[in-house]
């Protein structure tokens, strides 16, 4: 069976097409949105990279020196610098090892700190740096063994919730030894200024 369409009855009108102007505006808006997105991404990259460069490569903004004895409160621990002492040699509990001498022209700087691990911290991380004149920065020395006190916040001998004495050892040139500022402490991943502990 064939059905013949009547040419006399008008067919229902299709939905009115959107005007050419509105479609043109839509395309333009889309182009602007794409451009704005790309520019926003580029600006985000610039801000992030610039902030990182400013924070880490401009020595004038990186540290806040605390009052003597004032502790630093990290998410994982509270840290207070009790004493910062200098020594030419360090003793060891290993009788066969004898005292460990600093390198020629250098001294050991021993930072004794009281650490209280925050309850709930499973892997407390404390990063220590010694700050000297003109914001000169030293990392902890390695190779000094046989000490009696723990050397880090994450040491097994540092209990949670109870103040515990630890010591972090640095090596500094003798000519800088009388100009030490303090010990900078961070959790290693913070964008905040580093806070510098001073001995009480």
């Amino acid at each position, binding site marked *: 069976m064939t059905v013949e369409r009547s040419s006399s009855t008008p067919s229902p009108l299709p939905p009115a097409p959107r005007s050419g102007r509105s479609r043109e505006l839509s395309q333009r808006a889309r182009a602007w949105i794409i451009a704005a997105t790309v520019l926003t991404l580029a600006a985000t990259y610039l801000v992030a990279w610039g902030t990182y460069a400013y924070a880490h490569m401009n020595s004038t903004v990186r540290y806040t020196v605390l009052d003597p004895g004032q502790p630093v409160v990290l998410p994982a621990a509270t840290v207070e610098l009790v004493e910062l002492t200098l020594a030419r040699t360090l003793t060891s509990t290993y009788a066969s090892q004898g005292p460990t001498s600093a390198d020629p022209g250098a001294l050991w700087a021993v930072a004794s700190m009281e650490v209280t691990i925050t309850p709930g911290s499973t892997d407390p991380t404390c990063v220590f740096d010694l700050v000297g004149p003109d914001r000169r920065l030293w990392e902890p020395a390695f190779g000094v063994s046989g000490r009696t006190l723990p050397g880090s916040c994450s040491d097994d001998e540092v209990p949670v919730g109870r103040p515990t004495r630890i010591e972090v050892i640095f090596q500094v040139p003798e*000519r800088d030894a009388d100009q030490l500022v303090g010990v900078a402490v961070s959790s290693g991943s913070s964008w905040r200024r580093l806070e510098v502990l001073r001995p009480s």
Partner: protein
Amino acid sequence: MSPVSRTAGFRRSVLLSWLAALACIVVAAVALQVSEPPSDRTQNVTGVRNEPVSYGDGSVTVGSVRVGQGLDHFGGVSRTAGMFLTVDVTLSAEGNRVLSLGQFQLLSGDRVYDDYSVAGLRVQPGFAERTTVAFEVDPQRIDDLVLQVGRGEVVSGYHQQLRVHLGITPENADAWRRASVGQVLDDGSNTTWALP
């Protein structure tokens, strides 16, 4: 919409895309420039043996070169059918930041020798440290050997490499080969001292 206006819209989109791409390049270039320490603008620096070469806030000095057929390291002696070559490298951190060297290579034309014993230096401010870097090389390809050192980081906003000619030339290469016969080299341990 007429074909003409559609074409015009397409051209505008292309133009905007190109402008956005150009903006990205400009922004990336500015960011890289912002992050670059002022003293480290040079990518490749050529130095001379036994003279300090500026590196970051400090300097690198390439010192003695020795050749042999054995290498004493890790408590044992390794032998080679070729030649061992050791170079003394001193890194001095004269500024306020830690300096490090993590890449040591010997260049012989288009041939690149990596270090035989993994070497690395990380020096605290105000200190200098000397290490001995060992390479195993082809004795027939030692003319004009150049030591290349750098930080060797995978991700870095900039990269500075130092190149120092070791003083082995086509004229004296035979003498170096003869000098290596029967010699056992010591890659030694690092020595650190405070700068005066």
